[in-house]
């Protein structure tokens, strides 16, 4: 008897398996209605078995499944950066939607935090790097891995119709030899977070905040004189060359990309501006050269700084760690540098060049960054979508209540203007290290800015010969 039951179960599973949906784009509401059908199975060419089974008809194509030829039964891994535990539900929901849109594909998710880069480097070394990787565009990670040939060229792997769903500037940010290696993911808006308790003592109004970076020295002097506090300003020490491009409008490399040129008058003036602030004693020196943006944020959160440049998403940290300060916060647009460009994007989703299932991996990276997924994340944190279509969601036209949402009305315009204007820089990390070691004596030891940068250029050029 038991054998017969097992046999019947096996038969039923074979029949159901034969009717399972393929992995390629499919599956979408309207919800399919189960119905009874009769299937005929021929056994041993002579015996005919008729059995009634309940099957679900194959649904129509899912509009979110836009990548073709996804490998059936692919098993892929995605690594995110600092999304757990706050955004666990969002990530799990997104993966569930993805698995529904691409039936048969299984996704394993891991979130990595402080050790993300070390873990990723080790994984690439061991040959078991994830298929899909959440990489920082701001920190230049996409170009670092793409330059080593570790990421998939998405310009070749993605249909034009999909590329067109993103803001053009974001798709082209951080190109390596003219090609793109990331799906633009969530974006940030640079704002100046102002502590009115301190700032109001200067007699200035938040709307008087400098519109350009070169207005900061005078402001910091006023703040020091009137309040005795220091400016909470941070150099991007992990990417100084980019900061020179955006803030100083400096040309850091020759047009042919073979000679560094970051010792021009613009770069020298930019460095002298910061050295002047250090000399005047108007900036917090720890924050100025830290690699950890939390150092500056913590100083601001302690209530001892008049302003701090950050993203609206980090206001929640201020609220959590110093609720008393939250009521005194206001925001203004962050000043721009001489380049006039507001900045580059924040995060991207990239695909491992050696993924066993490249199409499934591309599909997942695209899915995380599509209009619906972007909106879902924006509703949970003050980050902004990389796809214009997302801004059609009523969420973005609803009036702002919390200060975190104050940038919402201008978000679409801001994000559409984000662009990476830094060309491909050979041996970028090493050259950045050279620059950092050149500028520290200028900032803190009175060394000559021109000589320091010229020496650094000579070293950098020797390195790339």
């Amino acid at each position, binding site marked *: 008897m038991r054998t017969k039951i097992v046999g019947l179960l096996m038969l039923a599973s074979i029949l159901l398996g034969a009717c399972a949906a393929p992995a390629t784009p499919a599956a979408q509401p309207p919800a399919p209605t189960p119905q009874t059908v009769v299937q005929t199975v021929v056994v041993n060419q002579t015996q005919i078995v008729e059995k009634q089974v309940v099957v679900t008809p194959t649904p129509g194509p899912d509009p979110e499944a836009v990548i073709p030829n996804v490998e059936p039964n692919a098993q892929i891994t995605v690594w995110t950066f600092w999304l757990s535990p706050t955004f666990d539900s969002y990530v799990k929901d997104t993966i569930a939607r993805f698995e529904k849109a691409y039936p048969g594909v299984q996704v394993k998710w891991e979130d990595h935090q402080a050790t993300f*880069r070390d873990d990723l480097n080790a994984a690439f070394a061991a040959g078991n790097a994830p298929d899909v990787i959440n990489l920082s565009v701001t920190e230049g990670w996409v170009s670092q891995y793409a330059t080593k040939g570790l990421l998939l060229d998405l310009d070749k792997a993605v249909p034009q119709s999909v590329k067109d769903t993103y803001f053009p500037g974001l798709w082209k940010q951080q190109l390596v030899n003219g090609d793109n290696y990331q799906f633009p993911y969530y974006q940030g808006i640079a704002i100046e977070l102002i502590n009115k308790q301190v700032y109001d003592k200067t007699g200035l109004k938040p709307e008087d905040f400098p519109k350009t970076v070169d207005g900061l020295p005078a402001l910091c002097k006023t703040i020091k004189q009137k309040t005795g506090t220091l400016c909470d300003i941070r150099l991007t020490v992990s990417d100084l060359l980019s900061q020179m491009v955006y803030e100083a409008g400096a040309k850091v490399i020759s047009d042919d990309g073979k000679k560094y040129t970051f010792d021009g008058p613009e770069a020298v003036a930019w460095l002298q501006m910061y050295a002047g602030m250090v000399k005047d004693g108007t900036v*917090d020196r720890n924050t100025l050269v830290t*690699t950890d943006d939390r150092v500056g944020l913590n100083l601001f959160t302690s209530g001892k700084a008049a302003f701090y440049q950050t993203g609206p998403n980090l206001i929640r940290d201020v609220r959590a760690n110093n609720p008393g300060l939250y009521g005194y916060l206001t925001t203004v647009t962050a000043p721009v540098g001489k380049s006039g460009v507001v900045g580059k994007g924040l995060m991207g989703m990239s695909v491992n060049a050696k993924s066993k299932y490249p199409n499934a991996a591309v599909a997942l990276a695209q899915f995380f960054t599509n209009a619906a997924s972007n909106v879902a994340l924006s509703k949970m944190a003050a980050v902004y979508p990389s796809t214009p279509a997302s801004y059609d969601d009523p969420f973005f036209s609803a009036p702002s209540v919390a200060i975190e949402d104050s940038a919402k009305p201008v978000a679409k315009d801001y994000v559409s203007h984000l662009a990476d204007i830094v060309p491909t820089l050979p041996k970028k*990390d090493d050259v950045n*290290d050279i620059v950092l*070691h050149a500028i520290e004596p200028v900032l803190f030891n009175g060394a000559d800015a021109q000589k320091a940068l010229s020496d650094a250029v000579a070293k950098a050029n020797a390195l790339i010969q």
Partner: protein
Amino acid sequence: MTKKFSFTPYLFLAPALLVTAVFIIYPIISVIYYSFTDYDIMTPPVWVGLKNYIELATDSTFWLAMRNSLIYLIATPTLIVLSIITAILVNRKLPGITLFRALYYVPAVSGSIAIGITWRMIFDSNGIINGILMTLGILKEPFQWLAEPALTLPLLIMLTVWAGIGYYMMVFLAGLQNIPEELYDAARIDGCSEVQKHWHVSVPGLRPQIVFVAVISSLAALKVFDEVYVLTSRTGGIMDSGITIVFYLWRKGFQLSHAGYASAIAIALLAVTLIFSLVNIRLQEHRMEAD
């Protein structure tokens, strides 16, 4: 008469040999190999011969890190002196003395990262030190202790000494309790003061512990990393003022992905450590022979 070969002792040794081979010998051989390569961890290593060592010889940051690591050895005699004094102080039969012993030992069982973060908070612009000094009117505005290059290394050494006293105190305490009481009685009869008593009895009696602590703490000082990582927020201090050899190794290997160059630094450190240990041991042997 020939001895019959037996596998039995090798079988007993096999597990330990296997662990040693996998976790010590293989990594050492790998590091030696990688030190002759250009290796970024993510892509296969490329043989470059002596290039890393030649670069190392002219690398000013490497020599600065080496200099700082050697300066860090100041921690060793400081630790020995302070640990002996602390051990003498807690080696008394006073009510509640065990509580003090336990309290002094707390840093030894605390994580170095937690210790570093605590000290960073203490010396922060808005930290306790500035708070006290400003309340007392000694400072008018916060002093940036951790952004003052001249202070980075002394603060790091102070942190290491503070964290190490408890552990080494226990070593000296155990030594003190093995010194026969009759020797102190004899010293007292000879007219020694309290200080002289310890100078002439305790210190000579603690010689084996002093040797042990000297070797262990100086090797630890050469390998210091955690304190630098935390106290300088992963920068090595302004103008590399607090950079040590292991921190520089980490920066090259993990921040800049030059694992080949970092391996060459590791080999240089190995050479220094070996030389240092040999000199240390020879000196001690020489002294014991003289005694």
